[in-house]
């Protein structure tokens, strides 16, 4: 208890004398912790709910039977007639858009007769809110009606209501026969009988999954083998929920990268804690000497300063919890939009602040604080009492080993380059991140030499150009080289992250723009209405496609068909294009550099495919390799002819000729149409004709330009969260500058007071502090730009490549960078305003007399 009192008196109470500075340090930790927590919570919510309704409504099953393009319905009979007591549930799974609310919800078709008769329909029919019939009787009666649906409670419908659903390109009316409680209050779906779903989706003779409940013995693996033996070649049996797990695995890299990005603010915060504790150590040198002389051990001193850091860490974590929870609400929307655009249809789940989240916040807050404070605390513990008391309260001139640190920086830089050459570990660019961290540390070590050289070279020039205040400012920063270096390190790290991510995103954007020139050659594009998603492929009616193909003024229509498949334990997209209708294209979108026309001619009506770049990275394949795909009831092999650049989705795609696909998956309905207008025809007239021909179909028609604009809008939305994370890191750094300048003003009050005695006007004192802030900003911008450029190379050529497999062409987004850096610079100078005001208000007589 006594020690706690001492800790309070000697360590915490002095903090209260500088509440603004203490508060800024706590806030830095708060923001760092909050961002990490927000990304963690939002990541779990945004990526955790795909197909959750499908799985929840799947009930308690063990295995699932699936096939690319759907399981032939005959397989249901095959399994049902096996001499085992296996319970089975065939399902159609797709999506529908509720017309009035535009909400996209899972659409599930169940064999309700079988479900009701086996008394396993409790989750749907047993919870029906009809009061007149028992659940089963109720269900049986309505099954005879082809318009019956059962809906989740959160949709807010009641039995008897009519609901209009957009399914593929058709709107149909259904009647709500019952309402079942949502699994967690959010995961609603539309349930209908299997036959009704097949009719609505025009998917006859196939189901999407058959769920199996097997007896306990002889074990799941054996049951899997027994069922597999009875299945046709292209049909697969796997553990239920494998698809969900595959999605989770696919999203792991996305979450991992975002989580690491969220640590930037924390790293910047660590610099600031280091600075705060360093200042404390120097200011309390005399006190440290006295308590050491009075019997305190080195360890006690070390613990005291670590305790101060722990106070900042724990206070920051405590505040970071509610702030992080609030930030998560904003982050989840951005993350869910990205998941929906690039990976899989998903509706964000609830944000849950679990005990684990609370623990995480405190562990990172405490951990970062302790680690950051270790070096200055150790320095304090090593000071001899005599030396500390003799020197008294001195300026912050802790030793800086510039040359040694520069050599260390060089070694770390070389190690960083070496780390970039190493491959990914289980799909994670571990060494890429290690290289980035090594570079950040190398930069921090090189900054004292850089700062010293910069000030030595330019301080006199600054004095001549901006006046004596600038000279004093430069000298002041140089005199506190260690403190200056830490501040420049913190801000430059934030700027470097901002610059590197800015360059990466700018390069990616430019690459995508160039890619779209090649990939979107048609004049018009048509797809079913409703929000698009990489794993949803609603179809356009074949009659409509035929009708459009026959319109005058149309030179050709490409029919693209896509399926969601599972390949090698990961979700992928299987697509086909109508090569007979493809325009001549001499440009290349392929790794080989050959003209597209030449490459695509090799897959025409052949068991050959081209695959997307992300696919090759996910599955470690390349041109010349073979792929075996489970298609319908067959398992054909396809030769990979070439690899194409693809920035449309991160899932990985396989592209084949439409004729080849129809051989295995005979559903001719296209997922979308690429329409070429004849040279002599007016695009506007053709558009009007298509709109007229599409009357009665719910489709969306885009011009080439619309589609590009939409793609870039989605792109920008996808990366909005990275900008938000960088902004927080910069805010933390700027707050650190404000806090540190405040400390600098307080530590230099004698000098400031003296200047007033020597004739300095208040404006000159203010100018000096603002020039100091400006110089810090300038130094940090130089160092940050250099480091940011190096980090952007790692991001583009190592981390992105190993995480997502995209080839990005380097591009300087000059305008964006100039704007961002300009804003940071202005913010840094503004951060000097309050410390400058404090300096101006100092009583010079008091300040000089103190010493």
């Amino acid at each position, binding site marked *: 208890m006594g020690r706690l009192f001492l800790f309070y008196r000697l360590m915490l109470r002095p903090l209260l004398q500088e509440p603004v500075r203490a508060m800024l340090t706590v806030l830095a930790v708060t923001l760092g912790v909050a961002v990490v927590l927000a990304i963690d919570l939002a990541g779990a919510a945004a990526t955790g709910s795909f197909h959750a309704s499908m799985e929840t409504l799947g009930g308690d099953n063990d295995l699932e039977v699936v096939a690319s393009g759907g399981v032939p319905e005959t397989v249901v009979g095959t399994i049902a007639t096996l001499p085992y007591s296996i319970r089975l549930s065939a399902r159609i799974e797709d999506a529908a858009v509720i017309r009035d609310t535009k909400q996209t919800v899972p659409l599930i078709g169940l064999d309700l007769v079988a479900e009701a008769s086996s008394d396993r329909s409790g989750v749907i029919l047993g919870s029906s809110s009809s009061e007149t019939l028992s659940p089963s009787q109720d269900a049986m009666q309505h099954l005879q009606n082809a318009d019956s649906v059962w809906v989740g409670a959160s949709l807010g419908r009641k039995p008897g209501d009519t609901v209009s659903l957009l399914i593929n390109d058709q709107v149909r009316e259904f009647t709500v026969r019952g309402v079942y409680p949502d699994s967690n209050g959010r995961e609603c779906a539309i349930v209908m009988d299997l036959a009704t779903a097949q009719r609505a989706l025009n998917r006859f003779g196939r189901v999407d999954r058959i769920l199996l409940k097997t007896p306990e013995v002889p074990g799941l693996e054996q049951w899997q083998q027994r069922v597999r033996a009875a299945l046709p070649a292209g049909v697969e049996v796997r553990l239920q929920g494998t698809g969900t797990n595959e999605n989770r695995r696919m999203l792991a890299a996305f979450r991992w990268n975002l989580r690491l990005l969220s640590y930037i603010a924390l790293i910047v915060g660590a610099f600031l804690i280091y600075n705060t504790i360093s200042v404390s150590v120097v200011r309390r040198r005399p006190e440290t000497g006295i308590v050491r002389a009075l019997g305190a051990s080195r360890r006690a001193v070390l613990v005291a300063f670590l305790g101060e850091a722990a106070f900042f860490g724990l206070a920051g974590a405590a505040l970071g919890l509610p702030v992080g929870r609030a930030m998560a609400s904003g982050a989840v929307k951005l993350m869910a939009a990205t998941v929906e655009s690039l990976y899989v249809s998903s509706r964000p789940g609830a944000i849950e602040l679990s005990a684990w989240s609370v623990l995480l916040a405190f562990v990172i807050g405490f951990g970062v604080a302790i680690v950051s404070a270790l070096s200055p605390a150790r320095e304090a513990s090593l000071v001899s009492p005599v030396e500390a008391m003799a020197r008294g309260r001195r300026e912050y001139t802790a030793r800086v080993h510039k040359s040694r640190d520069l050599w260390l920086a060089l070694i770390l830089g070389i190690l960083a380059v070496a780390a970039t050459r190493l491959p990914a570990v289980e799909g994670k660019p571990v060494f890429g991140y290690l290289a980035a961290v090594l570079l950040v540390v190398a930069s921090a070590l090189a900054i004292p030499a850089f700062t010293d050289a910069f000030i030595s070279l330019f301080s006199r020039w600054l004095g001549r150009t901006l006046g004596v205040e600038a000279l004093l400012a430069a000298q002041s920063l140089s*005199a506190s080289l260690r403190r200056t270096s830490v501040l420049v390190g913190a801000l430059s790290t934030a700027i470097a992250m901002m610059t590197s991510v800015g360059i990466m995103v700018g390069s990616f954007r430019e690459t995508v723009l160039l890619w779209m020139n090649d990939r979107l050659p048609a004049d018009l594009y048509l797809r079913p209405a409703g929000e698009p998603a990489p794993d949803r492929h609603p179809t356009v009616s074949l009659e409509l496609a035929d009708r459009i193909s026959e319109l005058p003024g149309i030179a050709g229509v490409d029919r693209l068909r896509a399926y969601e498949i599972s390949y090698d334990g990961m979700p992928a997209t299987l697509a086909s294009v109508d090569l007979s209708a493809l325009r001549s294209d001499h440009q290349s979108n392929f790794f080989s550099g050959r003209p597209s026309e030449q490459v695509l001619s090799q897959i025409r009506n052949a068991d050959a495919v081209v695959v997307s770049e992300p696919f090759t990275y996910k599955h470690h394949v390349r041109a010349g390799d073979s792929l075996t795909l489970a298609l319908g009831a067959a398992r054909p092999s396809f030769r990979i002819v070439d690899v194409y650049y693809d920035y449309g989705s991160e899932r990985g795609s396989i592209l084949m000729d439409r004729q080849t696909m129809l051989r295995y998956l005979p559903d001719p309905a296209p997922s979308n149409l690429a329409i070429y207008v004849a040279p002599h025809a007016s695009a506007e007239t053709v558009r009007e004709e298509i709109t007229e021909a599409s009357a009665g179909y719910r489709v969306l028609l885009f011009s080439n330009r619309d589609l590009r604009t939409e793609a870039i809008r989605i792109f920008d939305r996808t990366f909005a969260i990275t900008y938000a994370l960088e902004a927080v890191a910069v805010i933390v750094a700027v707050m650190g500058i404000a806090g540190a300048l405040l400390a600098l003003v307080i530590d230099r009050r*004698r000098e400031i007071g003296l*200047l007033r005695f020597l004739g*300095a*006007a208040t404006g000159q004192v203010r100018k000096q502090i603002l020039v100091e802030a400006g110089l810090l900003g300038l130094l940090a911008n130089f160092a940050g730009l250099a480091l940011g450029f190096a980090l952007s190379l790692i991001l583009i050529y190592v981390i992105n490549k190993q995480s997502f497999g995209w080839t990005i062409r380097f591009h300087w987004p000059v305008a964006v960078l100039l704007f961002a850096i300009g804003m940071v610079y202005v913010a840094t100078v503004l951060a000097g305003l309050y410390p400058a005001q404090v300096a101006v208000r100092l009583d010079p007589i008091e300040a000089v007399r103190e010493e």
Partner: protein
Amino acid sequence: MAIVALQNVSKDYLSDGQSVHALDDVSLEVNRGEFVALVGRSGCGKSTLLNLAGAMDFPTSGRVLLDGVDTSTLKDASLTLLRREKVGFIFQSFQLLHTLTVFENVELPLLLAGKPHARAAASEKLHWVELDGLGNRYPHQLSGGQMQRVGIARALVQSPVILLADEPTGNLDTVTGNVILELLKRLTRELNTATVTATHSAEAAALADAIVRLRDGNVEEITRR
């Protein structure tokens, strides 16, 4: 006309909520060429008187005329200008900026005032205090006496009408202190300026043209020679 005139000056401070009477109805005139010593116990009001005379502070009542200008009538900017042109301060602990060279320390007031030829003026003042050749050194490379000479050169660089010195020999040994006092006395005479020094030193008092003895904020006695 007196360079500095304090007319019925009182100065009260608030310290921890208590009113402290630092000076009470003090009147004093200092003329050109005069070397004045303020003596008295610690806390008797010597430093307060110097701060008022140097326009660093305002009296609670009474008037301070610095070269004929009533300091109470000026705003901060005008007060700064007045101080720049008329007053040179010398401190007990020298108050040199350790990051600046001797030259830079001396020319600092001129640079703050935006005046040209600062280096030449600094060089001249260093010659006056017999520190030729040490202009490029840093303060930590000097002895205590040399540092105080730099302090004096800095105080002189604006050619002030009055030098205000607060215990200028307090951090020096007796021999060095005496040398500094002789230097101050000589410069006062040669430059026809005025010097007011707060001191505990009997040697300083012995050199002074006038000794002002303060006690509890009151002028107890003024002895002129």
